[in-house]
C-alpha cells in the first residue's frame, strides 16, 4: 500500500472524531442563531422604527465583518479585555452563532413577509394579542417556509466551521493539519478532509430535507414561492 493511503488510513479515526467536534460546533451555532434570529426577524418586521434600526445595524455588523476577524476579536480581544475565560470551542460556537443569527434573521424575515397579511389580521380579529398572533399563527407557518433557506445555512456554517481552526478548535481541518505536518502527507490528508466535509454537507442537507417533509402541512409549502 502506498505511503499516502497508509497515512489516510491511520488518520481516519482521528479525523472522524474531529467531525464530531465540527458537528457540535455547527449544531450549537445553528441553535444559537435560531434563538437569536427569530426574535430579530420578528422585531425587524413588527418592531418600532428605532428597534428596526438597531437590528439593522446588528445585521449589518455581523454580515459585513469576516468570520476570522470576529473570531480574533472575540477570542483574543473581548475575552481578555472583559476577563472572561472561555475556551476556543465555546467562542467558536458563539461567534458562528451570532453571525448565523444575522443571516437567519433575514431568512425568517423573508418568510414572515411572504405570508399573506390577512393571516395576522385574522388572528387579531379573533382577539389574539400581537404576541399570540405572532407566535401561534405567523411563526409556525413562517418557520416551515424557512427550512430550505435554513438548510443552506447549515452547509454555510459547516464550511465556515473550518475557519475556527485558527483559534485551535480541534475540528476536522485542525486535525488534518496536525497529521499532515507530522507525516508530510499534506495533499492526501487535506483531500480526505475535503471529502469528509462533502459527505457531511450531503448527509446534512438530506436530513434537513427529510425534516422539511416531516413538518410539512398539506397544502402549505415553499414550492409555490
Amino acid at each position, binding site marked *: 500500500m502506498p505511503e499516502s493511503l497508509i497515512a489516510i488510513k491511520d488518520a481516519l479515526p482521528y479525523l472522524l472524531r474531529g467531525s464530531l467536534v465540527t458537528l457540535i460546533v455547527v449544531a450549537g451555532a445553528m441553535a444559537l442563531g435560531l434563538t437569536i434570529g427569530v426574535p430579530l426577524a420578528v422585531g425587524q418586521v413588527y418592531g418600532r422604527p428605532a428597534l428596526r434600526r438597531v437590528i439593522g445595524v446588528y445585521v449589518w*455588523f455581523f454580515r459585513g*465583518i*469576516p468570520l476570522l476577524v470576529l473570531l480574533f476579536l472575540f477570542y*483574543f480581544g473581548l475575552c481578555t479585555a472583559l476577563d472572561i475565560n472561555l475556551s476556543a470551542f465555546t467562542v467558536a460556537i458563539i461567534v458562528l452563532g451570532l453571525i448565523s443569527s444575522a443571516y437567519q434573521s433575514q431568512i425568517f424575515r423573508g418568510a414572515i413577509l411572504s405570508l399573506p397579511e390577512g393571516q395576522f389580521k385574522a388572528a387579531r380579529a379573533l382577539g389574539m394579542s400581537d404576541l399570540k398572533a405572532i407566535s401561534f399563527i405567523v411563526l409556525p407557518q413562517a418557520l416551515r417556509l424557512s427550512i430550505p433557506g435554513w438548510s443552506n445555512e447549515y*452547509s454555510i456554517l459547516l464550511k465556515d466551521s473550518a475557519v475556527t481552526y485558527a483559534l485551535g478548535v480541534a475540528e476536522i481541518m485542525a486535525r488534518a493539519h496536525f497529521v499532515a505536518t507530522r507525516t508530510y502527507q*499534506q495533499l492526501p490528508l*487535506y*483531500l480526505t478532509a475535503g471529502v469528509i*466535509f462533502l459527505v457531511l454537507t450531503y448527509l446534512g442537507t438530506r436530513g434537513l430535507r427529510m425534516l422539511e417533509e416531516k413538518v410539512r402541512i398539506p397544502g402549505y409549502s415553499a414550492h409555490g414561492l
Partner: protein
Amino acid sequence: MEEWLYIQTEVYPALLKGFWVSLQLIVPSAFCGLVIGIMVGVLRVYGSRAVMAVADTYVALFRGIPLVVQLFIWYFGLPYIKIYLSPFVAAVLGFSLCSGAYHSEYVRGALLSIKRGQMLAAQSLGFNKVRMIFSIILPQAIRRALPGCGNEIIYLIKYSSLAYMITCIELTGQGKILASNSFKYTEIFLIIGACYLVMTSVASVILGHLEDRLLLPGFEHHRI
C-alpha cells in the same frame, strides 16, 4: 497622546499596507471568478452532456469543500506533487476557483430564466449557437445574475481574510501581527472589522449603481 502616536506611526502604515494586499487579492479574484463563473455557467446550460457533467462536478466540489481546505490544498498540498505556489498566487487561485463555482450557479439560473423565444428568434435571424449565446442570451442573463454575483463578490471581500491562514499577510494578517505585538487585540480587530465593513458597504453601493446603470428599459420588472 502616546496612543495617538502609536496609531499614527505603527497601526496606520501597517494596515494601509495590508489593505493594499487585500485589494490586490480581491480585485483579480473577483474578475477571474466572474469569468470562470460565466464560462462554467454557459457550459452547464449549453454544453454537451460530458462537458455538463465535468462542470457540475467542478461546482459540486468547490462549493462543497470549505474554502480553508481548498486554500490549504493549493498552498500546503500541491508541494506534495512538486508544484510550489507563492501564498499570494495560491490565495488568488483558491478564491477565483471557489467564487467561480458560486458565480456559475447564479449565471446558470439566469441563463435558464431567459425565455426560449429569445433563442428561437436569434436562430431564425441566422445566428449560430456561439453568437446567439454571447450576443443575445448572455447580455440579458448577466443582468439578471448580477444581484447574486454581487453578493458573491461581497462574500469574496470577507473571505479574502482567509488568505492570512496560508501566510499571505493582508489586512487581517497585519492586524494579527500588530495585535500580538501590542496586546491591543480588541482595538486593532475593531479597526480591522471597521475596514471590512467599509469595504463591503462601498462594494454593495457600487454594485447597486452598476445594476442601475446596466438596467435595460423594459426589463426592469425582473429585478428582485
